[in-house]
């Protein structure tokens, strides 16, 4: 049975898929806790929501803040049904470039931030006996490509973290949903060439919410990426090295 969310947290709500998720949730009457670094963007977004939400300024790398902030948001929303972790960065790297600082940042935002929020959500929802935890991963998680040194690694970590979480708390009625989009038309990929099967952030958000409502486990968005990545995953490593992917 599809579940409608009454209170949700969107981490990384200031732009891209996160902002769209917040907008679409609010359109169904859901009160959304908008979490991101950029204060002005969040307030502007909140003003445009059909159901007013609440703004919380937070850098996902400030992991220590998360437990108290999570509790505060739950209190201000009056409850919680879902946490969407949509914060993420895709570093621009040349195929030959090594930039540890950038890679560290990628892992911090894409993985450690998710773990900080995911841990809180999982503990709460386990007690609650229901709730949904949704993370935006990527098709990039499925293979380690030349140009995506840390991004692919961070999304692969996202996939296995979410799977572990699902195996840990799924039995208590918690829905743990991994969304794997291909290219989505957001600021993240602005200016990048050659983007097949690109979809808008609105469509990505809509598929994400639907998957969360139905308690899907892993969803490729759009669906075409599932067979494509199925094939790509089958390419043996010695061959994959030689391809220009």
């Amino acid at each position, binding site marked *: *049975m599809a579940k409608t969310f009454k209170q949700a947290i969107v981490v990384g709500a200031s732009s891209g898929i996160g902002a769209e998720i917040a907008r679409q949730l609010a359109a169904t009457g859901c009160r959304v806790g908008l979490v991101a670094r950029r204060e002005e963007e969040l307030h502007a977004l909140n003003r445009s929501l059909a159901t007013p939400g609440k703004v*919380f300024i937070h850098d996902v790398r400030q992991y220590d803040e998360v437990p*108290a902030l999570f*509790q505060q948001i739950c*209190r201000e929303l009056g409850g919680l049904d879902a946490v969407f972790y949509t914060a993420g960065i895709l570093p621009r790297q040349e195929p030959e470039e090594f930039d540890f600082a950038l890679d560290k940042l990628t892992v911090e935002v894409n993985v450690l931030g998710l773990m900080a929020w995911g841990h809180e959500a999982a503990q709460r929802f386990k007690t609650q006996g229901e709730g949904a935890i949704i993370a935006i991963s990527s098709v990039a998680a499925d293979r380690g490509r030349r140009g995506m040194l840390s991004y692919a690694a961070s999304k692969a970590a996202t996939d296995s973290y979410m799977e572990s979480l699902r195996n840990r708390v799924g039995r208590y009625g918690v829905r743990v949903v991994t969304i794997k989009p291909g290219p989505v038309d957001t600021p993240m990929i602005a200016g990048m060439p050659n983007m097949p099967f690109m979809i808008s952030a609105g469509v990505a958000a809509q598929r994400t919410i639907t998957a969360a409502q139905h308690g899907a486990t892993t969803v490729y968005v759009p669906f075409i990426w599932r067979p494509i990545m199925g094939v790509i995953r089958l390419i043996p490593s010695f061959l994959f090295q030689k391809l220009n992917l």
Partner: protein
Amino acid sequence: MRERMSNLSSMLPRDRMERLSGWGESIHGMGYVYRPTTIDGIREAFALARERGVSIALRGAGRSYGDAALGSENIVLDLTRMNRILNWDPERGVVVCEPGVTIKQLWQYVLGEGWWPYVVSGTMFPTLGGAAAMNIHGKNNFAVGTIGDHIKAFDLMLPSGEILPCDRTQNADIFHAAIGGFGVLGVFLSLTLELKRIHSGNLRVTPLVVRNWREMFTVFEERLPQSDYLVGWVDCFATGTGAGRGQIHQANYLTEGEDPIPAQTLRVENQELPDTLFGVLPKSVMWRLMRPFVNDIGMRLINTAKYYASVRSHGHAHLQSHAGFAFLLDYVPNWKKSYGAGGLIQYQSFIPKETAQTAFASLIQLCQHRDIIPYLGVFKRHHPDPFLMTHAVDGYSLALDFKVTERNRAALWNLAAEMDAIVLAAGGRFYFAKDSVLHPSRLQAYLSEERVQRFLQLKRRLDPDNILQTDLYRRIFHEASPYNAASSSSQLPQPPAVGSSSRV
């Protein structure tokens, strides 16, 4: 670093968090539950709430149908462990109890000496603190009033820690507001109740069948003067000329000498509800057997069968124990589970006698028209009481149990709003212990704005920091509350926002 530390210390401990539900299992909330055993324990909870900037909801046995004992995301003070009977005077029938003493504890304690609580609910599990906060009534409301009418005095702890003794002369305004004040003015620390002298463990019960609304009202009015208890059951599926059909149970105390062996019938073990139904079925499995019938078809069948059974039993007076007659809701343990995962709500309205018949008939018609039919209808007679937030009228109440499902939830809440309009037009009232659906605007309409304002002024005087809040309180006072007249937030002043300092 210092700021970070203060953030963590502003948290409530995660391991205190529990999922709590209204008794109807249709409303839930997560709360940080504390279970004090002493007055100091309550004081500590108030200090903690103040320090962390959170609110406190008082909870007894959690027998209110809706959100009256929930305090989502805040502290919930469960008082069930404060359950000592502090003093008992068997000569005068006066008992002093802590708030967590249940009605069950009380009647079992006093029965042997020939006493019974004046007012009990249809289940024996509520605490007296909760019963006083809701100002509960029984099947004898028309004769003896509410439980508040038999509370002689109480001590009330304010969120400041101050303890106020209250009775009908000392702090009389607080006495009449805290009873029925649904637990947001203070904590009852001890309650002094007067009890009823009885001369037998049994009541004489007479079942009467009624064929429609008109008979229901006529028989009630006829029987009132000669009855100690009167309760009606209504078959809400019946239509047309049979609408309002059902059964009335009249019960009377036995007079002194009528029971040849009162010492026997007054023993607690002779009051116990049977362990099995029909002599063979263990009661614990009953709700599972009922479950296939708790739907429109099954309940239509059961209501019809019950009606024809009551035609046969009409007028056959019999003796029944006090507990057996009073605690009908306890016959089948966990019967609410037969309603399924969505639980149930009860919609109870109290309507003056002049307009009640038309209004109740319209309510049931409306339900039938919307195809959301209550599976149980219970009918009672009431009379006014002196308490500020009273639900009673000189008239009748009809309590309707509705099954809640994910599918019907929105339609049911809309139906309730439509029903509210009928009740208000008839001059009716509502009851916090049962309510799940009341909209803030309706409260002022039935209680009068003046009463609501008086209550809120008292609330602000006794609890200036607005520490005592339940989900019910937030729902019905959201707009009227003097604490947040300027802002749209129903929350307390929040601790300093975390996370605002960081930049990438």
